[in-house]
């Protein structure tokens, strides 16, 4: 039997852990899943400590949650933070079968545990004390009885590290093109010869997600970072904004005493407005 404190702690942590696990499975975005899993792992780390495995608890936090989960996050970043599973299941009956199988499996495991004779917990306190603490106790075992396994695991880790490098490494098969060559190539292909336009910088907006305006006043999508564009995070310049920009330009010109630029054509405004209407209709559906 455990102390009341541990019981309270267990019930709190169990809820956290299960919640995290469910969250991980149910979140559509990988990054959310990763965060949920990190939560579960920290909860488990505390459980370890409560059960007298102090060293493991710390390792769980430092190595697992700190290093491995960060590795996961890096990969998520590489692959695309927002990449989410579509809700539709393509394999017929996979979900139902998985849930039913899972339930059955869980019931079976619980039945197995319930049937097992698990009533006299000895606790590791004695073992820890005999060795002078949890860490010395583990160390004594690792470097004596399990030294061989330890060495092999080390070899495995090194192999894995090398393997990962081999798998991800891309051999540079050709000489990197110089700036001159790139420029020549651009001219030859006749694509964008000039440098790309800079994104629009406006006082009231964060800069990089808003497209710059071309001389005729239309937004230049090319000026926004392709990653943002692919993610659909480019800020669309609404009609009111364009209108206000026009007014601003007019007043600025008046204030500076310059010749005022030609006002934006009505057609341009109408196009933007119709786009906005469509957008709204789509969202409402």
């Amino acid at each position, binding site marked *: 039997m455990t102390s009341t404190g541990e019981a309270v702690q267990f019930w709190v942590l169990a809820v956290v852990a299960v919640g995290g696990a469910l969250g991980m499975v149910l979140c559509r975005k990988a990054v959310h899943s990763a965060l949920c899993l990190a939560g*579960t792992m920290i909860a488990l780390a505390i459980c370890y400590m409560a*059960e007298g495995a102090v060293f493991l608890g710390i390792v*769980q936090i430092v190595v697992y949650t700190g290093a491995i989960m960060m590795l996961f996050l890096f990969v998520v970043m590489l*692959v695309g933070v927002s990449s989410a599973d579509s809700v539709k299941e393509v394999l017929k009956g996979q979900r139902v079968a998985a849930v039913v199988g*899972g339930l059955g499996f869980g019931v079976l495991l619980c039945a197995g545990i319930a049937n097992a004779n698990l009533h006299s917990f000895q606790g590791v306190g004695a073992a820890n004390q005999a060795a002078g603490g949890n860490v010395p106790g583990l160390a004594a075992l690792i470097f004596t009885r*399990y030294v061989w396994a330890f060495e092999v*695991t080390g070899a495995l880790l090194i192999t894995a590290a090398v393997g*990962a490098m081999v*798998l991800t490494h891309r051999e540079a098969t050709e000489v990197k093109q110089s700036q001159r060559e790139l420029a020549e190539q651009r001219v030859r292909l006749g694509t964008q010869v000039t440098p790309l336009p800079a994104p629009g910088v406006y006082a009231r907006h964060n800069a990089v997600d808003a497209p710059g305006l071309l001389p005729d006043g239309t937004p230049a999508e090319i000026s926004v970072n392709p990653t943002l564009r692919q993610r659909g995070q480019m800020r669309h310049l609404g009609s009111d904004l364009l209108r206000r920009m026009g007014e601003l330009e007019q007043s600025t010109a008046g204030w500076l005493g310059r010749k005022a630029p030609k006002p934006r054509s009505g057609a341009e405004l109408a196009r933007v407005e119709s786009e906005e209407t469509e957008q709204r209709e789509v969202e409402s559906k």
Partner: protein
Amino acid sequence: MNPVNYLYLAALLFTIGAVGVLVRRNAIVLFMCVELMLNACNLALVTFSRLHGNLDGQIIAFFTMVVAAAEVVVGLAIIVSVFRTRHSASVDDTNLMKL
């Protein structure tokens, strides 16, 4: 409270992880689910260590962690290289292995 509840928790987490492996398509999440299953095992091992009053269970949990780390490293590397060639991280897109 009986410490056996830790085992029930481990069983629950393991099952959730297993179901996750089966229903999720994103390879990275799939991996996370596998990690969850491993963690569940570790919890059970630590609990067993407590049950028997020696540290061997913790040792095994420790090795599990190390091996899991190795596995994650290689697995993620594979995911990255698959993503490079197929521009997708969905396991359903790597389905060439059929008649």
